């Protein structure tokens, strides 16, 4: 927002579709906070916004795509990652970010999550994890820690929940970090680090859903949750991801857990074709079709 009194501008403002503000997220929801960190990371990393594309799925976090002033694609539930894969393969010069929620990415999108990590597709995945399916009214998600109350487990959940950093590390991700919406500066730094890396990066951000998850579990509002994050988070950079599972009211391990190097999908593809086809291989294909 332009301050008409002294012309200062909120650093996040140039990244927003200001004609769509105020947004639909609830009071105390942390998604908007993650967008601030994302904007700061873009500024820090000096990312060329014209060659950045943001892809989201369905859910509260999926709505990020509609609020950022970028080439943005609000796709179908769970399928942001394969869409992003197609985008990246057709135009390798694009920086492609997938910004979606825990249900979208790990339930219906779970298969695509693990395959993209396995392939090491060069995508930066920001997973806002509010431990619930928020948009549809607070149903159990694969990340809902036991024994929480949700609308589809009214007597309390009893399923073990996913440890997302562990899952994506096992699948092959080269950069895995988790922060909460309290850790605004660390989150911005992690996103910047992901931009500097080639390959599949996964950054989980634990965020409040005061309207559904926190309210149904009598955990207070967004501010109470932020205070809980402040109090109960422990920075454990480099911790084994098998140890960072979440519990209902317990400690939240945050930090950068995985930062390793292995060739990304497109590098491996080019190498293979080069080996097999030599000069016949067209290494930098002009995939853009002729336009009229």
């Amino acid at each position: 927002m332009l301050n008409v009194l002294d012309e200062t501008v909120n650093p996040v403002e140039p990244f927003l579709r200001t004609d769509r503000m105020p947004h639909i997220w609830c009071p105390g929801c942390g998604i908007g906070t993650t967008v601030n960190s994302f904007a700061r990371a873009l500024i820090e990393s000096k990312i060329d916004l014209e060659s950045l594309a943001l892809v989201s799925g369905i859910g509260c976090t999926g709505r990020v795509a509609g609020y950022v002033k970028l080439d943005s694609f609000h796709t179908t539930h769970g399928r942001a990652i394969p869409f992003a894969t197609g985008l990246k393969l057709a135009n390798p010069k694009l920086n492609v970010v997938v910004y979606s929620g825990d249900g979208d990415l790990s339930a219906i999108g779970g298969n695509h999550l693990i395959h993209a990590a396995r392939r090491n597709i060069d995508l930066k995945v920001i997973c806002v994890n509010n431990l619930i399916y928020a948009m549809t009214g607070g149903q159990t998600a694969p990340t809902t820690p036991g024994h929480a109350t949700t609308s589809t487990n009214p007597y309390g959940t009893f399923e073990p929940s996913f440890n997302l950093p562990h899952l994506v590390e096992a699948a092959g991700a080269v950069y895995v970090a988790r922060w909460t919406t309290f850790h605004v500066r660390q989150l911005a730094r992690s996103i910047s680090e992901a931009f500097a890396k080639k390959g599949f990066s996964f950054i989980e951000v634990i965020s409040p859903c005061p309207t559904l998850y926190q309210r149904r579990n009598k955990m207070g509002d967004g501010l109470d949750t932020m205070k809980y994050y402040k109090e109960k988070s422990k920075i454990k950079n480099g911790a084994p991801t098998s140890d960072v599972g979440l519990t209902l009211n317990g400690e939240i391990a945050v930090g950068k857990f995985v930062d390793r190097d292995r060739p990304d999908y497109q590098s491996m593809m080019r190498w293979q074709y080069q080996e097999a086809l030599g000069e016949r291989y067209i290494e930098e294909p002009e995939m853009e079709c002729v336009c009229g």
Partner: protein
Amino acid sequence: MKADPHGVLTGTHFIDGDHACCEGALAAGARFAAGYPITPSTEVVERFASRVPTVGGTFIQMEDELAASIALQGGVWGGAKAFTVTSGPGFSLMMEHIGYAAMTETPCVFVDVQRGGPSTGLPTLPAQADMMQARWGSHGDYEIIALCPNSPQECFDLTIKAFNLAEEFRVPVMFMMDEVVGHMTEKVVIPPADQIEVVPRKHTKKSIEDYLPYGTNGDLVPEMAHAGEGYKFHVTGLTHDERGYPNMTPAVQDKLVKRLQNKVRKAADRVCMFEEDRLEDADVVVISYGITSRVAQRAIDLARERGLKIGKLRLITAWPFPDKKIVDLASHVKAFVVPELNLGQMVREVERAANGEAKTFAVPHAGGGVHNPDEILKAIVEASRC
């Protein structure tokens, strides 16, 4: 616009329909495909995988049809012409994303090499039972175009046409092959690139400030932009306005969905292609498509030898359905005979369009093989007597 010679395998070939379809895609300018193996379609992408690294493009085999059907759309928005191939069970999985392509107006081609169904059915045997699904398979009101080749040569020629229609109307085009056409090997002539007409992408020439992703200049089809060009546009499957912004009100819904429908329906005369023979003085017209049309041809020839006045209408475009043609024919013929490798799908459209002006005789077949010409002949004779 002429085809890019890199993708055109000029010459005379002896290949099957699946392979010819792949060559058609390359000739049309397709440089990206995302696929998943399913009999009897797999050869299309197998050939694409082996051709495209030396033509200049990419193929990726995705983890399932859900991924393939949307990865190709990411490829389209990244600038490429893209397609996927599948058969019945995969076609069912792809339905959500066919709807997404229709809603976001993503030009692309979905090839369905139809096989026996429902469910796993008959993986290696033909049917034509996905015809209604091609039209209505995804939820909501939307319009697609569907083409039905009946030979490997047509698998080449009509695939190019499918891509051209996709770009012209910004719709997903369903390329409805069947297992026999896909796996039959015949002579396919691929002409030089400068004899192949290709429709370019309808890309906007507007400035970044003036561009409206879903605004139309009165012609019902908006201009496209690609990611990475600075337009910073938004695409969503939610009901949206001309800016592409979600706008979920009845008024915007009415405007959007009707435009999606009208952009194809109003051009139906131009889009509908068929092959016709001796319709002027026909008493009975045999309407067929795909492999069944070749069996029907034999039945028609036998009937004519007996002196019956039989006309032929072969549907090349199955959707939009050529209502006008049927209405016109119904006014002077006694009956239609509609053989299909299903238990009655396109025949319903014929009956609807005929509106009682002419009788309709279905010649169903549960699939797994093709009709015996005598079955169709029997129906023709019965229709002639009515």
